[in-house]
């Protein structure tokens, strides 16, 4: 089993995004570093638009993630509603 990860800049928008990810991925480990947050998860990680909208209290387009993203690893599968990271092996 390998970890996937994703990292965001630390700011007001990503606070909600990270909270949503933590709720939706109970196995995820949130690692705070200077000016950034790295999230590791075994095998796969799912980011849900609906959960982020709930936290932010506004509409959210998953492509807004691009503005705050720092890095990631794993294969990406993205739709309008979900952003998935996973390893197939």
């Amino acid at each position, binding site marked *: 089993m390998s970890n996937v990860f994703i990292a965001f800049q630390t700011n007001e928008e990503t606070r909600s995004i990270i909270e949503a990810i933590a709720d939706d991925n109970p196995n995820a480990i949130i690692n705070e*570093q200077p000016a950034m947050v790295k999230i590791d998860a075994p095998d796969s990680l799912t980011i849900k638009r609906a959960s982020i909208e709930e936290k932010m209290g506004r509409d959210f387009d998953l492509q807004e993630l691009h503005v705050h993203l720092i*890095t990631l690893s794993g294969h990406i599968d993205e*739709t309008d509603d979900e952003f998935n990271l996973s390893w197939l*092996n």
Partner: protein
Amino acid sequence: MDMKVAAKKLGLKERYAAMTRGLDWETTYQPMDTVYPYDKFEGIKIHDWDKWEDPFRLTMDAYWKYQAEKERKLYAILDAFNQNNGHLGVTDARYINALKLFLTAVTPLEYMAHRGFAHVGRQLRGAGARVACQMQALDELRHAQTQIHSLSNYNKHYNGFHDWRHMHDRIWYLSVPKSFFDDAVTAGPFEYMVAIGFSFEYVLTNLLFVPFISGAAYNGDMGAMAFGFSAQSDEARHMTLGLEMIKFMLEQDPANLPIVQGWIDKWTWRGVRMLTIVGMMMDYMLPKRVMSWKEAWEIYFEESGGALFKDLARYGITIPKCVAQATIEKEHITHQAWTTFYQYGAAAAFNTWIPEKEELDWLSEKYPNTFDKYYRPRLEYLGEQAKQGKRFYSTTLPMLCQCCQIPMFFTEPDDPTKICYRESDHNGEKYHFCSDHCKEIFDHEPEKYVQAWMPVHQIYQGNCFKPDVDPTAEGFDPLAAVLDWYNIQFGRDNLDFEGSEDQKNFDTWRQTAKSNG
């Protein structure tokens, strides 16, 4: 009457398909092979470009929208940082030397990446891959511009920032990053994608941007943090492109596997060698440290790169052989590199120093197997000499590796007390290498690497002086003439940090900032 039906908004997948399939066509006035002349000679077989899928599925309108937002955020931070004399808030002025190295070594590579992706974005015959490469070409231009903008503020106050582009083409250690990228852009489009898109972006940029830029933030540099993370926000897309290209080639034809594996092996090692400089910046040039090079290597290469290679095993990809040596070297190379730069500190466009005692203690703790045994005594000896007024500067020129162009300071993988030398003969000439892996790369493509512009050879051949210089004149000082050609101002840009103009100015300005005096 027609029923009015609200047009349903296209989903992400349809929007992307419309852009990357519907807008492309097969040429008829000219054969496709004439329009795309470069995407076959490397031997990569592609049967169906329509199988290409970019998972981010970014369309042009979304691209412009989010990039514009990134720029607005970046420049807002930069303005605030500069308006407020943010440079005086960095931990100490030694840190600023890491930025000098960044501007002269890395920023010109961003521009080269722009050129490389613009070229590949024209030459690949699949529209999906072309669009992704063109976006990356624009990103890379943005990275170069934002770095120049951010760092221009430091040029108002500190030495060594004044002629970075000129220096990049001339200074001995800058030939390491320069030749790395020249090697990549002179390859075919598929090798370029493996070199930069995959090995560099996916496997290695995490080590360049993430811990180092997080470190810049930790040292109070909002300017570097802003451009670093803004660039890195594009990087997720770049990494994905690199990984997609690998998967695509491997899925298209089994005959592609050995070619791709050869490129992965080559470019992992080329990247690892170049990142020696980044590792040194992390261990020695950040006064406040987030993590050691060794720790960063373990997280981003061993753990995350390991997961990647395990995943790619289903296509038959194996972990590059050079990783075994890189794993041993993670405990050595930063110390070897800094000790070398310290000794060649008269010929560098930044200041060097011996770390303070608590910094040496930190290194001892982070490198328990190697630092006290091999490196601390050397650094302490050099520091002691400097205190006695005998600061050591080497004035001889080192032998360079013909492949990575790094001076021969790396040691044998099984004996850290012995410098590693390898050599090959080609057309009656002898060529020298730092390692088995650099030698192997040369042996595979000697015609390419014999053409390398080797800074030390060029100096000895008299090609690194200004045109009006007469090397036969009485009392000719070759080092001074070379520095003049580099546009390094002796005594300002180079030598020890202790006693430097930057050190004095920073102390004075910071005192002024803190008091009414």
